[in-house]
């Protein structure tokens, strides 16, 4: 290169720093879910699977502790290892284990599980009902994509051209709908789209969709609703 500057930066090496620093340790109380598998394990797992399907939210991201006292007593350490594998397969976040012999823990992956689990019993709060409606109070800008499969979406503001709103339920836009709106991802054809000003590029409910050229200039700029009517998409004015 034509000019090389002599400007050098020197970073002090870690060893030269004044005194060694300690890693900061903090304590925290967490609520873990304690699962107590029973013999026969296959029945217990069947019950567990049913519960996982019915209410996955309870287990979502929670630390799980496996209390294997019953299994170890009834079926021995081999069965305990099999049960632990079964729990891992179901993608449960195992963090600790108790009631199991040291030989099981010495083996492979179970070495990482914590065993110092003394704590108090704590009530499990009933899983908070997940919100069934998403409220957006800002305009949805071009390029933004709002996807909410768990229910309705309400936008207090406009949805810009080049933006999209995809909802499990209905879509309510208290403003101009200029981008794309697709409703009924989970509720299907009963969902609707409402807007104060229809200037959308594409609307869809369930499996049906239409682009703007379909409803033409007559509805453009008017308050409108989109719904499924006897197997086809109907766009009608609201005023």
């Amino acid at each position, binding site marked *: 290169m034509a000019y090389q*500057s002599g400007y050098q*930066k020197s970073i002090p090496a870690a060893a030269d720093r004044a005194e060694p620093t300690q890693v900061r340790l903090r304590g925290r109380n967490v609520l873990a879910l304690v699962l107590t598998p029973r013999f026969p394990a296959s029945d217990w797992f069947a019950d567990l699977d049913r519960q996982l399907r019915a209410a996955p939210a309870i287990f979502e991201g929670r630390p799980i502790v496996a209390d294997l006292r019953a299994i170890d007593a009834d079926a021995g350490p081999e069965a305990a290892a099999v049960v632990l594998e079964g729990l891992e397969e179901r993608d449960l976040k195992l963090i600790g284990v108790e009631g199991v012999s040291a030989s099981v823990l010495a083996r492979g992956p179970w070495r990482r599980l914590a065993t110092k689990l003394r704590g108090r019993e704590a009530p499990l709060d009933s899983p908070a009902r997940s919100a069934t409606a998403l409220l957006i109070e800002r305009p949805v800008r071009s390029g933004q994509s709002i996807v909410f499969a768990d229910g309705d979406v309400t936008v207090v503001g406009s949805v810009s051209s*080049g933006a999209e709103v995809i909802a499990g339920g209905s879509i309510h836009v208290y403003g101009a709908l200029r981008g794309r709106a697709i409703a009924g991802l989970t509720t299907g054809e009963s969902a609707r789209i409402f807007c104060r000003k229809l200037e959308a590029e594409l609307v869809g409910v369930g499996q049906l969709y239409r682009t703007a050229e379909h409803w033409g200039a007559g509805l453009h700029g008017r308050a409108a609703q989109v719904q499924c009517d006897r197997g086809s998409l109907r766009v009608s004015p609201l005023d």
Partner: protein
Amino acid sequence: MSKVMVVTSGKGGVGKTTSTAALGAALAQRGQTVAVVDFDVGLRNLDLVMGAERRVVFDLVNVAQGDAKLAQALIRDKRLDTLSLLPASQTRDKDALTEEGVGRVIEELRARFDWILCDSPAGIEKGATLAMRFADLAVVVANAEVSSVRDSDRIIGLLDAKTRRAEQGERLDKRLLLTRNDQGRAARGDMMKVEDVLEILAIPLLGVICESPDVLTAANMGAPVTLHSPSSAPALAYADAARRLLGEDLPMTMLAPRQSLISRLFGRRAAA
């Protein structure tokens, strides 16, 4: 407290560099210390518009990578000593900049200047997101036409997502600067009206700069339009915009270049 302001738009060619230079000069004329920084690495233009292209030795990339000190790279304007330019590199490209390096440069600039104006490149990629990363305030430049407005809307979405302030949960102050406006065409329906643009973009208006040949003349002369022709319509509009940035509450006026009788009779537009 120094302010970092990004001048961005999404679409290219709408007037970011012109506006950065004009606003920078207008703020400096009102006594603020201003640094204008060109973030368009590889396609730099701010140095041309500022008339400093023959004095560039070190640039933003050099300072960010630690090869040069900020004082070596800053070019003081010959006409206004409170105005300085930090040019971009022309031989490198945007990948040469890192967030960490830019962050350090911005911090150093904050210590020396009241206002740091970042001239963003067009687009939504790394160059543009780096230019807006450390901003306290954004001026979104748009023309009253559909593709510019849509691109500016995209950029506004990014300003609400990719800036430090947005990540920390604060709302970034965003203002709209409408450039190359033509009231006549808007009235005839050939261009979008100012109200239509505001309705779509939903951010407060900083100013409206009307289309004018003075801007191109000033750029070719190597001076911000506010310095080159201070009594021209765009210069006055930029000066008003600068006053609004400083907190004054001025009414919005559409200052249009005066047309001669002949051009009004025959509808000719001056070559832009």
